[in-house]
């Protein structure tokens, strides 16, 4: 317990009290606090445990880079693991728990790992756990996996809402410090569309906590005045609490807005977070710079912080890390901390400056700083240590598309690469350490046209640094990657073992792979690795920068497309009618199709069987609206279809329909369907439900890319028409009752007729005499808005004939009875011949797939082709997916003869039967094969037969 609340100052509202819980204990803080500052103010400096050694850890930074102070925030479905206490705004009722400790944060069994730390060095696990072999699966790995991770994820669904949105601007400004504000202001004043985003809870950047002087005001006052002006402009969008997490091709930026993370529960209708995709004509990176820790023994003891963080807590949150502080630095900036702390009445014990040959060797203390010992043996008692190893421009975003940052000796840091005019770094992100430079930089970057306006006068703090990387005298552990417990010693070890490439060292030691992605530690690691490998830092270079600058919740990327709204639902025009009829619906792609229409006490099989019987014996009505319908018009429509289909359509007479088969250019069957000719220059194509979109795109390609000279136009009319199949011996009699002024017979509506008619006193309709069921059948299409009404009318008309609605289950039973191929057989690997449709392939014309279909492998007589199959034991049930073997053969893939594609229980033949693909099958009708269905532990004999199980003479088509 060393931290405390300063008696005055800070951007907190002391008139408010916010109660919160950490590890079950109650505390309070003020509006304006974040969780870390409130804990410090309450004297809590132990906030978490590290990954490998379970070391006690406190907060080390004051922002997004925090590796230590990670908590489980909130509870139940709202629980968030690994949440950085430094980024959590305090709210009334906040509940947080520390992580990766058992049983408690103070006493953590896992800490024994650090005793064995001399063995648990980088990569130790690659060298052991191999004997005895069986132990890995049974003992070692389960142990390792149990140790995995830091926080625990909720198992409940997230009750909050998420949103996605797009934004566009002339200038995106990333970061709202002096550089960003100046850039935004300059651009905005010249009328540009500006977006200013900052991950912080409040705009202002470092001006919210640094003692600066701009235009005779404090830096804070100046910033608030600028922000107020920006807020008043219609062409400016201010986005606080918004992290730009990634830079993508086309100057598109990904951003996460934490809309309601600062409250216990989002307001009604409001999202928790909003994910933005920002298309920026230009963008500037005004992300500032990150202060680096120094590498020395015990640099992870709670109470050790980077110097700017310590003054950040003191100045902005009035939270002091301790009553007495030792400062350890290799550059000037830490002097600001000394000055600011003194001003707050915090005692600064000493400033240990490596440039004067002074070093802290070790920080002594377990759960808090007791004292530090120096290179000369001196000991300084103190409660906290502020360290500064220099400043690294926050180049991350600029390097996410492959460009590498450039080492700059004078500020001992990597500075951004030049990635072109679309995206420029300014201010400290560009390596400028002086406020005046940052402001000037911003003004320059914000200048859209004309000359750059003058920038306000300001006070500059001198900055100078002499790099210093590692106190080798340290006896205690000196950490590089705090969260993953990578120490300074691990890097030379990696180099020694051949993992000296910066990327290999990263992977071998896991440096930079934790939730903070090495924001604090990577440069230290690179410097030490470079030294160990006898290279310069510039030669060593950095590891690859990747999205995301800070981690992004799954929920934000998913937005509103969760649960039932994952994908849109597509309903047919007959959906209401089907619902009235008690349909059970099934997902078919995005469509919901009526699957069967159960009556009291029927399961799907009983229902489907009844539907089939009733249809084959009387009449049935089925919704087939999902079939793709493409209107194809133009002078060359016929010629075009001849090239798309393997059979011919230019010869089709007007008012007629024809079954068509389409191949892919590689000679394999693509799709099928009936296409009708409505006029000389007008065809209507139908496609399978599954391939409708692909066929459309194929048509567009063939015309636009292959044969643009053809005069042909096409558009999908799938949704314009409600289409129903009316099938069964009584279909004609039923339809007759609703068609206007036309007697249906084999002259007016012969088999394969396609004609425009009207029904129910004037409703436009198209009548096709086609049949998938094998019955005397029609398909009737009416404009979608009339669909339900017409279907109801047909049900009435058919009532006297016992009409039933039937679903896709019954449809599929009937097509299998008839041996009509569908999805199970059109599987993207079958040829026309395999499907028994080889005769359709014209030899008189060129068409898609003609040539490649002639390859030996596609005409090999041993290919698997469609056959019928039925169990020898006629009472037995068969299932799809069973493989076929010659009776004598032992089970093996080498002996595999094919498999069962589709099965159905045929109510007409009162048995299970199916369609299969069988090697050289057409020659094997009558053969008895062995069916291997090991998955269901079911092996049985089956008889191969003609695919047409029912009404082989097709008599019923014409009854």
């Amino acid at each position, binding site marked *: 317990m060393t931290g405390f609340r300063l008696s005055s100052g800070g951007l907190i509202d002391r008139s408010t009290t916010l109660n919160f819980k950490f590890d079950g204990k109650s505390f309070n803080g003020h509006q304006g606090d974040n969780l870390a500052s409130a804990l410090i103010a309450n004297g809590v400096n132990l906030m978490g445990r590290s990954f490998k050694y379970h070391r006690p850890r406190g907060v080390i930074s004051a922002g997004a880079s925090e590796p230590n102070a990670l908590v489980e925030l909130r509870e139940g479905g709202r629980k968030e693991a690994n949440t950085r206490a430094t980024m959590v705004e305090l709210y009334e009722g906040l509940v947080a728990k520390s992580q990766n400790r058992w049983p408690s944060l103070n006493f953590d069994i896992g800490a024994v790992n650090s005793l064995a730390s001399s063995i648990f060095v980088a990569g130790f696990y690659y060298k052991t756990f191999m004997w005895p072999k069986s132990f890995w699966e049974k003992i070692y790995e389960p142990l390792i996996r149990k140790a995995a991770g830091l926080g625990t994820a909720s198992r409940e669904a997230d009750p909050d809402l998420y949103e996605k949105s797009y934004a566009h601007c002339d200038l995106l400004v990333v970061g709202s410090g002096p550089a960003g504000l100046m850039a935004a202001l300059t651009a905005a004043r010249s009328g540009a569309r500006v977006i200013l985003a900052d991950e912080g809870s409040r705009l202002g950047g470092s001006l919210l906590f640094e003692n600066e002087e701009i235009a005779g005001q404090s830096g804070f006052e100046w910033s608030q005045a600028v922000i107020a002006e920006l807020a008043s402009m219609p062409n400016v969008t201010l986005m606080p609490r918004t992290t730009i997490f990634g830079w993508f091709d086309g100057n598109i930026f990904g951003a996460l807005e934490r809309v309601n993370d600062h409250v216990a529960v989002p307001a009604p209708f409001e999202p928790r977070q909003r994910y933005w995709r920002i298309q920026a004509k230009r963008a500037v990176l005004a992300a500032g710079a990150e202060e680096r820790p120094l590498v020395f023994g015990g640099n992870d003891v709670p109470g050790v912080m980077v110097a700017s963080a310590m003054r950040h807590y003191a100045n902005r949150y009035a939270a002091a890390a301790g009553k007495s502080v030792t400062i350890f630095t290799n550059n000037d900036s830490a002097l600001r901390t000394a000055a600011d702390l003194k001003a707050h009445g915090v005692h600064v014990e000493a400033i240990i400056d490596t440039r004067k040959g002074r070093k802290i060797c070790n920080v002594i203390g377990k759960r808090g700083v007791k004292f530090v010992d120096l290179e000369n043996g001196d000991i300084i008692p103190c409660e906290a240590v502020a360290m500064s190893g220099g400043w690294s421009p926050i180049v991350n975003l600029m390097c996410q598309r492959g460009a590498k940052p450039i080492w700059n000796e004078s500020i001992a840091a990597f500075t951004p690469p030049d990635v072109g005019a679309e995206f420029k770094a300014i201010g400290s992100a560009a390596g400028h350490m002086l406020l005046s430079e940052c402001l000037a930089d911003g003004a320059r970057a914000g200048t859209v046209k004309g000359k750059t306006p003058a920038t306000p006068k300001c006070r500059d703090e001198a900055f100078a640094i002499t790099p210093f990387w590692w106190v080798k005298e340290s006896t205690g552990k000196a950490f590089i990657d705090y969260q993953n417990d990578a120490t300074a010693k691990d890097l030379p070890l990696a180099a020694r073992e051949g993992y000296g490439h910066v990327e290999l060292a990263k992977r071998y030691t896991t440096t930079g792979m934790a939730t903070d992605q090495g924001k604090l530690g990577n440069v230290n690691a690179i410097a030490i690795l470079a030294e160990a490998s006898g290279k310069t830092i510039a030669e060593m270079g950095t590891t690859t920068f990747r999205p995301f600058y800070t981690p992004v919740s799954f929920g934000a990327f998913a937005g509103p497309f969760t649960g039932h709204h994952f994908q849109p639902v597509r309903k047919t025009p007959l959906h209401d009618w089907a619902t009235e009829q008690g349909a059970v619906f099934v997902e078919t792609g995005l469509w919901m199709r009526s699957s069967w229409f159960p009556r009291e006490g029927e399961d799907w099989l009983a229902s489907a069987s009844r539907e089939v019987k009733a249809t084959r014996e009387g009449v049935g009505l089925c919704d087939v609206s999902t079939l793709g319908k493409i209107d194809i018009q133009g002078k060359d429509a016929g010629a075009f279809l001849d090239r798309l289909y393997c059979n011919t359509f230019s010869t089709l007479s007007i008012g007629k329909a024809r079954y068509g088969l389409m191949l892919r250019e590689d000679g394999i069957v693509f799709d099928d369907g009936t296409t009708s000719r409505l006029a000389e220059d007008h065809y209507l194509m139908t496609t399978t439900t599954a391939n409708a979109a692909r066929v459309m795109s194929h048509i*567009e390609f063939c015309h*636009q890319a292959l044969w643009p000279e053809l005069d042909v136009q096409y558009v999908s009319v799938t949704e314009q028409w409600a289409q129903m199949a009316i099938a069964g011996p009584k279909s004609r009699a039923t339809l007759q009752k609703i068609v206007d002024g036309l007697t249906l017979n084999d002259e007016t509506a012969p088999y394969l007729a396609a004609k425009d008619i009207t029904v129910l006193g004037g409703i436009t309709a198209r009548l096709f005499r086609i049949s998938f069921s094998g019955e005397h059948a029609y398909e009737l299409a009416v404009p979608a808005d009339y669909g339900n009404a017409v279907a109801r009318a047909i049900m009435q008309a058919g009532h006297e004939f016992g009409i039933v609605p039937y679903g896709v289950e019954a449809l599929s039973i009937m097509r299998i009875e008839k041996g009509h191929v569908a999805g199970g057989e059109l599987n993207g690997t079958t040829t026309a011949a395999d499907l028994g449709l080889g005769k359709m392939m014209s030899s008189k014309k060129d068409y898609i797939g003609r040539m490649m279909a002639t390859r030996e492998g596609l005409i090999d007589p041993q290919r698997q082709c469609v056959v019928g199959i039925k169990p020898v034991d006629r009472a037995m049930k068969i299932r799809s997916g069973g493989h076929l073997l010659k009776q004598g053969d032992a089970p093996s893939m080498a002996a595999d003869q094919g498999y069962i594609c589709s099965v159905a229980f045929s109510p007409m033949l009162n048995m299970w039967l199916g369609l299969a693909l069988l090697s050289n099958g057409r020659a094997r009708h009558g053969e008895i094969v062995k069916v291997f269905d090991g998955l269901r532990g079911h092996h049985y004999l089956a008889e191969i037969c003609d695919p047409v199980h029912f009404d082989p003479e097709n008599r019923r088509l014409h009854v």
Partner: protein
Amino acid sequence: MLIPCPHCGNRPVEEFTFLGDASVERPQSNDPASMPQWQAYVYERENPRGNFAEYAQHSGGCRAWLVVNRNTDTHQVTGAVLASAFKRKAKS
């Protein structure tokens, strides 16, 4: 990644469907002797690291098939024309 559709202007990549190498040309002949050309047309692809002319359909927009010029290494898009107007470089 933004693609300049001649009809719709700059649109993001998710509105497009890609079909790869646009240098392939469908043979005219159905003579068995032309099999090698068919073979190449259907299976062999230019696949350069660098500038690339590729088929892409604005499937989430105007549905036009385009030939897009894009650098496969940098993803820099340098232009797009309608596939119907695309002039293939004569093969050397």
